[in-house]
């Protein structure tokens, strides 16, 4: 092999090839590179594959479409952001007032008080006053019985969830859920799920995803190309709650706070989901099952049917 075709030479050509693709070579240098490549199989291959990769990247970038609703979504987010800031501002002012009130209260309670007590004489002859505890110094709030009854709520996640009014169903359709979980681990298996559930009306194939706090979320809808069921990392079921009892599939799902159910549309609902990671609230709209490509991320507005089936915490 001639010295020109040595590995070091070809390494140098590597950089030259990149410069060629960036149109940074002079005509003489291009001619030199092409002459070398025509005689050196390694560089010829490198030139071809670098050219292919370069073209692929250029083409991909050139044909990348931009969603048409980018501005409307931005405007909505900005509006929401403004409201939140306003809320925080008001909250800040209210907190300030409360803090001031608390300070005044503390000053009031810690003012020098005249107490009655017993004078004890210690062994070294000093006097020590043991003050009687006045009624204003008594701890207020929780009694022993109450604190005992609160303990399970702070130690048990599921009990805490129930207490917080989360959507929680004590009687899940276990068999169906397990089938769906195992059948929706990959895109290929989603198709299997459709086959398994072929007896159901079209559009009722179910996909199960696991939310960050390990509650199983089931969304019904025909979902194509659904690669990974763990699609909703930021969806925290801890913040998903239902304002009215939601009857879905013959079961009452839960109650209290953030769900809205338009009275006109029967069975239609929207879950308000707080995205803690990104700090905004978004909605998951549900209805009877339609094609819902967007439910890959459950924190967007899409026609999906979301149902908390069971707490999978150990």
């Amino acid at each position, binding site marked *: 092999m001639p010295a020109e075709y040595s590995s070091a030479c070809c390494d140098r050509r*590597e*950089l030259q090839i*990149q410069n060629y693709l960036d*149109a940074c070579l002079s005509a003489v240098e291009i001619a030199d590179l092409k002459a070398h490549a025509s005689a050196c199989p390694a560089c010829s291959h490198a030139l*071809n*594959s*670098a*050219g*292919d*990769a*370069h*073209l*692929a*990247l*250029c*083409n*991909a*970038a*050139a*044909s*990348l*479409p*931009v*969603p*048409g*609703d*980018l*501005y409307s*979504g*931005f405007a909505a*987010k*900005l509006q929401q*952001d403004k409201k939140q800031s306003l809320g925080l501002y008001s909250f800040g002012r209210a907190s300030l007032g409360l803090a001031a009130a608390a300070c005044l209260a503390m000053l009031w309670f810690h003012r020098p008080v005249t107490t009655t007590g017993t004078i004890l004489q210690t062994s070294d002859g000093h006097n020590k006053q043991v003050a009687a505890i006045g009624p204003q110094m008594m701890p207020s709030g929780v009694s022993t019985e109450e604190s005992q009854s609160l303990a399970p709520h702070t130690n048990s996640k599921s009990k805490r969830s129930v207490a917080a009014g989360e959507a929680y169903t004590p009687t899940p359709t276990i068999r169906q859920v397990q089938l769906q979980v195992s059948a929706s681990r990959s*895109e290929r298996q989603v198709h299997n799920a459709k086959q398994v559930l072929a007896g159901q009306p079209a559009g009722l194939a179910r996909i199960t995803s696991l939310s960050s706090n390990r509650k199983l979320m089931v969304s019904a809808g025909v979902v194509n*190309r659904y*690669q*990974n069921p*763990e*699609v909703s*990392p930021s969806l925290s079921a801890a913040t998903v709650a239902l304002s009215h009892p939601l009857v879905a599939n013959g079961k009452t799902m839960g109650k209290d706070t953030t769900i809205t159910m338009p009275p006109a549309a029967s069975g239609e609902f929207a879950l308000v989901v707080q995205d803690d*990671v*990104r700090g905004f609230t978004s909605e998951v709209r549900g209805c009877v099952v339609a094609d819902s*490509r*967007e439910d*890959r*991320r459950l924190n*967007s507005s899409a026609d999906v049917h979301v149902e908390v089936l069971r707490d999978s915490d150990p």
Partner: protein
Amino acid sequence: MSGERERVAAPDDDLLIVQRFLRGDVAAFDILFARYQDYVYHIVFGIIGNAEEARDISQEVFVTVYRSLPKFRQSARFATWLYRIAVNRAVDAARGSRRWRFLPIMDVAGIGDRPADRDEEPDLVFERTEERESVQRILMDCPINHREVLVLFYYRGLSVEEIAETLSCSISAIKVRLHRARKVFRDLYEASPERKHASERDRAQRAVNDAS
């Protein structure tokens, strides 16, 4: 990108719009949005690889920019500052979602039905979409620091100097990183099954171009 290394607008022009916005002309922000929305979306999409998430994050980037404009140092270029926010936000999101992988699905409602797409042959659109998806898949296999330079270079068309400014690195560091990133991408692309088909067609196209 399509090869060109142009700037979106004269920096002075951007600064004038920023100043208008800071003087209270809220509508001025719309001009900036219209001017940069494509670029921000391309950067975010290139790094994240998921259309829907990219849309979300692009919108958040603009909300951040809207909120932070009063803090923007007007000695800097607005575009660089904006790209930096977009890259940081996208990289954060990409790192956060490392556990799971998204298929680069391009058929999200509202994405595929732009006028430009409608005018073209359906076969061509389909082919391009497939190619784009395969390129994006390969990009997602690249390390994130390689992905960000490739995206800024190819998707946004920034020069090495501009990338260095955006990522707060030296020019030589970016050159090295870009060189390595291209090599990594090339190796992955070469090993990908889609490559054979694409390369044959592209070579034929290049031969036609060379001949003409």
